[in-house]
């Protein structure tokens, strides 16, 4: 009998738990430890943040589903890792603390044979002074609670604008090394469309602020894509959309401080600048959770497991941008020191960024960190689950399941406005996610036919379809496993 412990019940943790439970017999235990009682489909938070979806439509409670399916759920947060056990406990375990219920505050050693760390990112608001969701007129849409606050703030502003107020809206990244530009991009386009729907667009100045060097970088070093019969750079496509919708932009901006209605940022030229606003949605930097790890003699071994995020089979040797290769990216998501530990989704430490690193004249690094979107998070979680299933069933670590983000495609549907017939979406598919400049030297590291963009109503329908399909799948309704990640 094996116990598989999964930390986190986001996209990757939940995908791993559901596949493990389906494919392993009941003699094996699947345990999920996660502090949030709900599963949330994070991509639809964009629509919660503009008041077009209620947060209850994008979430459901995990405990009843897990009980029904035979998954053991502990509403707790992992604190520290003991991959060799300790003096009293021979088996490896994770020390977790309950965050709700009658056990709240109590700690427990949760023992495992296999561990999947799917704790995603820590939303590191503290890294930017004054960036606090719901304060200083800044908001976030990274969780459903944040998105609810964002809509309250935006709605209040829209009402003031209906009474004649002119407003400045700032949306983008709230830290010099933030990632997830795609989410901010969706939000700015959705906000712009909502202002038009409320007939106050002419009273708003909307500005994109980002640590990207060029528009459309998205933390992926930009893209060269097919657009109809043209070949276009993602920077050109985003510029076209922004100009068409009268959205201004500030690039290469490392936001470092927020005051009430005022953001301070450093430019790549090393200048310190400010921008005022009446409403801002700024994505914070993402960091690891600061977990610590100990060996059986209680000596700290955090650096065997973590480098901010969790160490996996990537090549972490520091090297200049020009020497980065596709092969640096991990394939099994297995920790090199402890083969029974895995980290899919955002929880693994990337070998380096995907975008070209840049420093300001005063030495501040200003460029996007690498994004790991929902699709690769789901795919890597499934392949890790399959490795564990095969290892349990066939008795050895086969490592047959491999999936590098440099040999994996992704479809990103960026919502550009909500509405059955007035909505819009920018559908971008990329192959591979991490560019392979050696394999595709003439097309900016990607395969052109598989890297394409489309703008229009169909994108909105597709994004809405994905919402319903993935909620169905996450609820493990009949034949859920037939739906791809």
């Amino acid at each position, binding site marked *: 009998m094996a116990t598989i412990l999964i930390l986190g019940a986001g996209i990757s943790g939940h995908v791993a738990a559901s596949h493990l439970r389906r494919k392993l017999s009941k003699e094996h235990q699947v345990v999920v430890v996660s502090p949030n009682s709900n599963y949330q489909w994070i991509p639809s938070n964009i629509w919660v943040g503009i008041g077009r979806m209620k947060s209850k439509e994008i979430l459901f409670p995990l405990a009843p589903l897990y009980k029904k399916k035979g998954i053991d759920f502990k509403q707790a947060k992992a604190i520290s890792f003991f991959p060799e056990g300790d003096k009293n406990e021979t088996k490896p375990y994770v020390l977790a603390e309950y965050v709700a219920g009658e056990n709240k505050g109590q700690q427990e050693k949760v023992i495992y044979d296999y561990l999947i760390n799917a704790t995603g990112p820590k939303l590191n608001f503290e890294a930017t002074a004054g960036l606090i969701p719901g304060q200083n007129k800044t908001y976030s849409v990274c969780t459903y609670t944040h998105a609810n606050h964002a809509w309250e703030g935006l709605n209040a502003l829209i009402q003031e604008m209906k009474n004649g107020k002119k407003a400045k809206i700032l949306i983008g990244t709230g830290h010099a090394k933030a990632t997830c530009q795609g989410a901010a991009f969706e939000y700015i386009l959705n906000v712009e469309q909502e202002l038009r729907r409320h007939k106050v667009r002419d009273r708003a100045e909307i500005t994109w602020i980002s640590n990207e060097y060029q528009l459309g970088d998205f933390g992926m070093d930009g893209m060269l894509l097919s657009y109809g019969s043209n070949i276009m750079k993602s920077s050109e496509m985003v*510029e*076209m*959309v922004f*100009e*068409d*919708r*009268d959205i201004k932009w500030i690039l290469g901006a490392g936001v470092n401080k927020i005051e009430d209605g005022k953001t301070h940022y450093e430019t790549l030229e090393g200048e310190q600048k400010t921008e005022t606003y009446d409403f801002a949605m700024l994505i914070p930097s993402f960091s690891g959770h600061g977990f610590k790890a100990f060996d059986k003699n209680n000596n700290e071994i955090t650096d065997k497991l973590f480098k901010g995020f969790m160490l996996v089979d990537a090549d972490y040797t520091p090297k200049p941008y020009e020497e980065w290769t*596709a*092969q640096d*990216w991990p*394939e099994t998501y297995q920790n090199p020191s402890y083969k029974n530990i895995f980290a899919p989704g955002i929880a693994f430490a990337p070998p380096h960024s995907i975008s070209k690193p840049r420093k300001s004249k005063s030495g501040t690094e200003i460029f996007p960190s690498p994004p790991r979107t929902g*699709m690769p998070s789901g*795919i890597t979680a499934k*392949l890790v689950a399959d490795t564990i299933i095969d290892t349990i069933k066939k008795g050895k670590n086969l490592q047959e399941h*491999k*999936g*590098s983000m*440099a*040999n*994996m*495609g*992704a*479809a990103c549907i960026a919502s550009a406005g909500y509405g059955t*017939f*007035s909505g*819009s979406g920018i*559908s971008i*598919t990329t*192959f591979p996610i991490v560019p*392979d400049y*050696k*394999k*595709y*030297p003439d097309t900016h590291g990607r395969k052109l036919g*598989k890297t*394409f963009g*489309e*703008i*229009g*109503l*169909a*994108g909105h*329908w*597709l994004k809405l*379809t994905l919402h319903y399909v993935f909620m169905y799948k996450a609820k493990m309704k009949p034949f859920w496993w037939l739906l*791809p*990640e």
Partner: protein
Amino acid sequence: MTQRISKNKRFWMMNPVWQFFKYLWLSLKGMLIVAGGHGSTRSKDYQKSH
């Protein structure tokens, strides 16, 4: 504001009938790219194939 998307282009972008076919095409193409699989980049065969 600079008009960067022509009226004609915008018409097709928002035409529900045309977009319905786009929707089917995009769903299929997206599925093929994703279902097209994923794998290692470290094998000799993969690295030789460029």
